């Protein structure tokens, strides 16, 4: 496979974009116009339009902004004094799905050889983002534990060409759904629908390519517990809720209601006071519950619907049976309130220890995310496995994981008396994959090569004592000033606010074992 040439492949830069001035009635789905956002003008694509009380409103996606910032805007915020970009001509519209991409990239969608190879590589590589064009890799056995125990790592960028999606426009839908369907045909995507489904069908993936799902949010507001939350993404709650102003979610059973009376009636009957499973961890601050997707189908479905509101890549395409859900709760006099959770495959072929992970928005930026991540690694340690989160990560997911990884690794490197470290050892102590350790070190600019120090002017004596010539051009791990400063600052902050950590002694848990038959027949 050839390395991806991002410049040419990018569908956003067609050779000729038709530009021109537009009037309000001319604005339609697919048009890109400048929109006022927080005092500045940003280019945004119109994904849907509606007329409410005689006033048109537009659902826009800002370029280079995450979809969670997509929003409905009134006509006033459209800047029609500047030229707009017209959508791809009707010609493409005709064969919507095929046209758009066929012109952009020369796709050999039905090339069986390639797709087979892709599949093989996906099966073989422990972590999919690490596939290689090296044919030798094909002979390497899959390391089910997700351990990438390779002495050296070579890399090429993986390109998985998209194959055209089937024409799925025959639905009878209103304009929002039509826009959603259209969004599905939107270009940027790396996986074909078929491939994606295949992966979902046979694997236990919990994430899905964004283009698969409607891009227009279907809920305006959600009330849960004492919070009012603006959803970030589409979630397939029943279509009836599309029109309600506020959806009510029970804090304990996560049932959903569009009518306040209904919700109050439910609350008067609902007896659940905590997630319906076994408590496996408890400290002064938190409790963790383990829920089996197969045994608690309704609750887990409710949880997935809820979390889909905040996770773009999550898929609800398939059922919850093959997953376990680890739910983090805070306690008060009314019960154990869900703060966040992560799901985990009962048996992950790729060695993932987390499928989806979410801190509910009302509890975000309070350090819960790090505790969730820490807990997931605590489970992996108990299992004796190295773990890594399922990809793709969201932006917030990446930042959360990076922060955790950095803290863990820097702490290990700064341990009293530690003068050397090897990457695999660091990984096995923290139950992290070698790849993730490497990623972190690299991201922090900590792996360097020491050169030109035959006199040993800089490096410590211990290094000198061994063969100095050998040490030339040797990789070293550098604790940079920035990294140390950041760690110190974090420690100070923790001291001030009071840091919560997961205490492994309070985890009462054995890795659950599922019989072969339950694995074979029940998902």
């Amino acid at each position, binding site marked *: 496979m050839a390395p991806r040439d991002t410049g040419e492949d990018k569908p956003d830069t067609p050779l000729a974009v038709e530009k021109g001035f537009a009037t309000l009635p001319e604005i339609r789905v697919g048009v890109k116009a400048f929109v006022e956002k927080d005092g500045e003008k940003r280019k945004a694509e119109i994904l849907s339009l509606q007329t409410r009380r005689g006033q048109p409103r537009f659902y826009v996606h800002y370029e280079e902004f995450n979809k969670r910032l997509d929003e409905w805007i009134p006509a006033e915020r459209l800047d029609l004094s500047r030229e707009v970009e017209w959508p791809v001509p009707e010609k493409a519209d005709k064969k919507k799905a095929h046209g758009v991409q066929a012109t952009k990239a020369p796709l050999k969608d039905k090339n069986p050889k390639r797709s087979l190879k892709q599949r093989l590589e996906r099966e073989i590589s422990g972590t999919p983002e690490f596939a290689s064009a090296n044919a030798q890799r094909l002979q390497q056995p899959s390391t089910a534990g997700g351990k990438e125990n390779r002495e050296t790592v070579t890399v090429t960028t993986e390109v998985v060409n998209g194959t055209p999606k089937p024409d799925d426009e025959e*639905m009878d839908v209103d304009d929002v759904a039509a826009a959603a369907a259209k969004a599905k045909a939107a270009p940027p995507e790396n996986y074909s629908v078929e491939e994606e489904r295949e992966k979902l069908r046979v694997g236990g993936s919990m994430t899905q390519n964004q283009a698969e799902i409607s891009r227009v949010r279907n809920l305006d507001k959600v009330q849960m517990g004492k919070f009012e939350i603006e959803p970030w993404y589409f979630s397939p709650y029943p279509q009836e809720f599309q029109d309600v102003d506020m959806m009510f979610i029970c804090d304990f059973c996560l049932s959903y209601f569009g009518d306040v009376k209904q919700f109050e009636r439910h609350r008067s009957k609902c007896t659940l006071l905590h997630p319906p499973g076994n408590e496996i961890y408890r400290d002064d601050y938190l409790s963790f519950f383990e829920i089996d997707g197969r045994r608690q189908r309704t609750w887990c479905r409710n949880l997935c619907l809820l979390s889909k509101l905040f996770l773009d890549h999550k898929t609800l395409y398939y059922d919850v049976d093959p997953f376990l859900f680890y739910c983090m709760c805070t306690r008060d006099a009314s019960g154990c309130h869900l703060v966040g959770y992560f799901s985990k495959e009962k048996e992950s072929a790729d060695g993932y220890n987390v499928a989806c992970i979410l801190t509910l928005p009302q509890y975000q930026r309070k350090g819960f995310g790090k505790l969730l991540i820490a807990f997931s690694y605590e489970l992996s340690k108990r299992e004796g496995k190295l773990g890594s989160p399922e990809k793709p990560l969201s932006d917030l997911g990446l930042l959360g994981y990076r922060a955790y990884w950095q803290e863990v690794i820097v702490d290990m490197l700064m341990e009293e008396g530690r003068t050397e470290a090897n990457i695999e050892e660091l990984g096995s102590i923290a139950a992290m994959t070698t790849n993730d350790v490497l990623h972190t070190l690299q991201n922090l600019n900590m792996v360097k090569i020491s050169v030109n*120090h035959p006199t040993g002017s800089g490096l410590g004596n211990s*290094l000198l004592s061994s063969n100095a010539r050998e040490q030339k051009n040797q990789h070293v791990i550098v604790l940079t000033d920035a990294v140390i400063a950041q760690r110190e600052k974090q420690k100070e902050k923790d001291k001030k606010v009071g840091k919560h950590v997961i205490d492994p002694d309070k985890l009462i848990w054995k890795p659950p074992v599922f019989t072969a038959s339950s694995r074979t027949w029940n998902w």
Partner: protein
Amino acid sequence: MTTRQAGQRFRQRKLSTRQNLQIVRENEIEASNLDDESQRNIPLVKTGVEEGEESEHHLQAVISAAQAGAKASQLYIPTPETNVSLGVQYERLYPHRFQQPATYIRFSSTVEDCIGCPYCMTEADEEFLKKLNSKQRKGPQCTEDEFEQVMNFFEQTSASKQPFASVDNTPLLSFEELAAAFDEDEIEASAQQFAKDIYPYWKTCRTTARHHPLMPTLKFERNVDTDDSDPYVCFRRREVRQVRKTRGRDAQIAEKLRKLRRELEDARNLMHHVKNREFARREQLSLEKKIFEQRASVKEAKRHLGIKGDDEDLINQKPIPRARPPKLDPAIIQRGAMGPGMVPKAPLTIRADGRPPDSDLVQLVDERNRKNADIQNIIQDSMAKHRNWNNDWVDDTWRPITPPMDNESRRGNSFRAAFTESLPTPPPSFSEGEDTNMIDGARTPIPEEEKSALKLPIRYADSAMDAGHGAQGAFRRRTGRSGRMWIDRRGLKRKSPSARDERERERCHYDIESDEEADVYYTDPYDDWNIKYRIAIQASPNRGTHEQQVHAQQRMLEEQQRKLQQVSAMAGANNARAAIPVVTC
């Protein structure tokens, strides 16, 4: 992030993940000693974020801020708002009723178990209910719970009876149809009385909702083409995970299947045998019944005709041991299966069919006891008689007094019969009719019945004793002049004690109870030296010696007796084997 092109200045090692790397602090080394470009040789690990999103403005801002250093770490990715809701009566909705147990919570009830009646009334329902209750001012008032029960019942019943109502627009169920399905489990009697009043309201609601359920439900797959592209269809069933196929696995599976087949076949055969056995048993029972009836009629006939005797035919006779199979299949013994032929032999008190044992059944224990008693009696008897007979005599050529052989021969020729008259041995044997003129012969009278059974005039040494003494010598007795008796012998070669069969020695080994008597000296009473010795002592009768001789005699007797028991026990073992099935029944 873009992949940096590697600009190599010199050949570089690859980064090894297993090798120990030196940890250095930035402030401890000179920057010139570090090659920054080295990082370009390390493969750039992907972030795991989708490429399209990786370039997003806010993410990049945070990443570059983080890389710039600690100071800018206050940046974060903006998200839509969340607020504490003002209108919610949180305390009322979520009352304080949680009490944390001391131990970790274990819980397995489902949501359905915990939410009570699944139908929850809406504001519109509430209005309707108020109207309904104001109309029925005198009658009983319908509570919200009852209303929900009725609505839930309507919903559930129509969902189960008309699952496709929303698709094919079948007319709604009439109240009569619904009422016919009333069930105390689902709808209480108190609620049932309002059902008729609520029905029209439910019908209107259902019609307005275009036959969809009133409580919004998730869209599951319905196996139609639009399913795949419908973003609202969720939680599809997963297909069975493909198991990777290998030849070894195939072979393994094939072997398992074969084994399974074999085992099933075995089970089938076993059942077949059991069936046959039961048939046989049935036949046996019917035969037994027939026998019983015919005996009864025989008895009747005898009584009528006044015939006496020959009653043996009227009871079950003891079986002939030889008739039974020499060896039993241990499997059958274990399973307690019992051939029909074995039943009468059962020496235990409880028979397989639960009937009390026939009184004429011979039991091993009894048999053994009887035999032992016989032996004991005979020995005692013989000893008493011997003593009596030998009164005032000194036995200088002591001989063992052995019990008669009749027991053995009666039991069915299991032992070699005594033979020939050509080898008369010295006393204590006696010839029938011959008088007791022998000096030291022990006259052991034989019981009356044995006389008829056993015509042998001479008692020889115990055959058990002789077993293993291969070479038989020849003897002749003749009467010389003036009535002197002579014994001629020829070819008498005795093995020396040391040469005796080791096996035989072994056999006697445990025969002696006392340790002190562990050493048995085999002496040959016919040895010239012994005979001479005995004759020599005869000249000087000595009380002490005599007593010693009596002791020795007794000991010899006991030993022989034990041997006999051994033999009979061996014979009994045959009986015991036959008995086992009955034991395990």
